[in-house]
């Protein structure tokens, strides 16, 4: 009798699980459809993008990639990709240095005013950036930096992304203090503790920081719109905007979809190779998005 019951509930659970799977898969297909359609449509001839909502292209062509790659004002997407990669690389270096330094100070060192500065840092975490926008622009303009990468990259060396400082503080606090103490007894200075104990042990948090710095710099549009004024300095996201006309009309849809598809590849690769760091970053700080 009892066994029969178990078999029954077993079957019922299995049916419920199958239904849940089915539901999640169907909903998931809906979620992914726009992106899948975009990637596939980028291989369709321009005139068929408009007439074919399906996923399987009737004719495959690379024409959109050729026309899209030509870019804007004589600068090709090759240059735009190189520009974006360069900015991301420098931004990552900047954030790794400056944010870990600040985080180490907040998490481990004792100094007058630590609580006060930490509170200030937490407030800047929530502060809408728009209140600093105009003066920063004026300041960078007097430095002659508008039109260069400096307004975007220099702040990274000054730990302005409080999100990462917070993330790293949380992580460093979770490391056992005995490690530092042992190193100090062995004659390590505070700098030594930082480079030999904290940094090697904080690698997961450093990867998360580098990862999100890359994605946010790659996807950033607002700062690129403000500061990158010459086509040869454009990032990929700034260059994609040139496909959209002033009234919002798009002339070369095929090229736009092709370059948009290409622009997503780095994020995809990073996401699928570094998934656990994503989850860690999102759950410890509630990273925006």
């Amino acid at each position, binding site marked *: 009798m009892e066994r029969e019951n178990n078999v029954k509930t077993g079957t019922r659970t299995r049916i419920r699980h199958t239904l849940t799977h089915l539901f999640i*898969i169907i909903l998931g297909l809906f979620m992914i459809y*726009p992106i899948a359609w975009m990637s596939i449509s980028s291989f369709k001839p321009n005139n068929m993008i408009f007439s074919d909502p399906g996923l399987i292209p009737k004719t495959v062509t690379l024409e959109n990639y050729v026309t899209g790659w030509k870019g804007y004002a004589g600068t090709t997407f090759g240059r735009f990709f190189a520009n974006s990669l360069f900015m991301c690389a420098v931004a990552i270096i900047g954030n790794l240095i400056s944010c870990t330094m600040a985080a180490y100070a907040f998490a481990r060192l004792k100094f007058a005013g630590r609580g006060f*500065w930490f509170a200030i840092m937490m407030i800047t975490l929530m502060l809408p950036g*728009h209140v600093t*926008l105009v003066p920063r622009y004026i300041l960078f303009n007097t430095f002659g930096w508008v039109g260069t990468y400096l307004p975007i990259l220099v702040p990274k060396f*000054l730990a302005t992304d409080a999100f990462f400082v917070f993330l790293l503080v949380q992580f460093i606090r979770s490391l056992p203090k005995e490690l530092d103490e042992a190193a100090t007894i062995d004659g390590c200075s505070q700098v030594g503790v930082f480079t030999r104990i904290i940094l090697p042990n904080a690698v997961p948090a450093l990867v998360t920081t580098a990862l999100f710095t890359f994605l946010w710099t790659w996807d950033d549009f607002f700062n690129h719109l403000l500061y990158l004024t010459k086509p040869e300095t454009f990032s990929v*996201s700034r260059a*994609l905007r040139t496909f959209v006309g002033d009234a919002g009309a798009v002339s070369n849809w095929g090229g736009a979809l092709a370059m948009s598809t290409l622009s997503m590849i780095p994020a995809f690769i990073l996401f699928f190779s570094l998934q656990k760091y994503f989850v860690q970053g999102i759950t410890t700080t509630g990273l925006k*998005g």
Partner: protein
Amino acid sequence: MRKMSGIVKFLRNNAAGYMFLAPWLLGFLVLTLYPMIYSLWLGFTNYNFTKPDATQWIGLGNYVKMFGPVFGLSEFTTSTGDMMRIDPYYLKSLSVTFTYVFVSVPLKLIFALAVAMLMNQKLRGVAFYRAVYYIPTLLGGSVAIAVLWRKLFEKDGLLNMFLGTLGFTNLPGWITNPKYALWTLVLLTVWQFGSSMIIFLAGLKQIPQEYYEAAAVDGANKVRQFFAITIPLLSPVILFNLVMQMISAFQAFTQAYIIGGGRGGVLNSTLFYTLHLYIQGWAYREMGYASAMAWVLLLIIGVLTAIVLRTSNLWVSYGTGE
């Protein structure tokens, strides 16, 4: 000598801390504190980027320019004696932004929670599903997706192709019709529920399964369990998601900018606050006015966050007792 050693001692105790803090401190002073004070001052002036030498203190002029229409003004005299026209689009941008925030944030959180609960089961492949559902969030903020969104909701876009094959005719261009344009942006935001979902999922994992089992023994059904166990125990996470999503929704920019081609869309139906601020500050170079707008945005976000946090003790529980 004694005093000297005091200073040395102070330096020795604090030098390392401030050395490591130096980059952040410099960044805070030069790129946050000074700009904030400066922009507060600019907000009371008629600073124009093309003629900074003509800058004059105009008191609350910029703020009257924003909110004048509430009192039926169309122009007014500033403290310098000049006539100033009110901003006819400011209130529109405010209402567009409020509609967007108050619709998209709750919908996004409800969706995120529903999907998180669906995935909080002992299912095979949950990690894979979670990854798939996160993809829109991963890419959603990009220009690429905004360009795609135009294509989906245009008059001859993907959605209308589908609806056409289902036999619908006379379909509107969703992006170009002021009645619907904002809703395509709401949909775009709700679509990116991935981060909230992952945070909810982490929160749900913390709730002991025994609570549900005990409730089931006491005869509580799933709905009752949801409201008596899940919601109260998850409430700190809900509060966190609510505050973070609200703050970022008020600052949404890229999608509206791309979809409107750098403007506020048809009849300014997608004129987000930050987009209006950008147009005022950078297209018209009225940076004094843009600074004043930024401060109002800060106030709005601050007040709403304070209200949410203050009222949170009515519905958020921090695990008082087992």
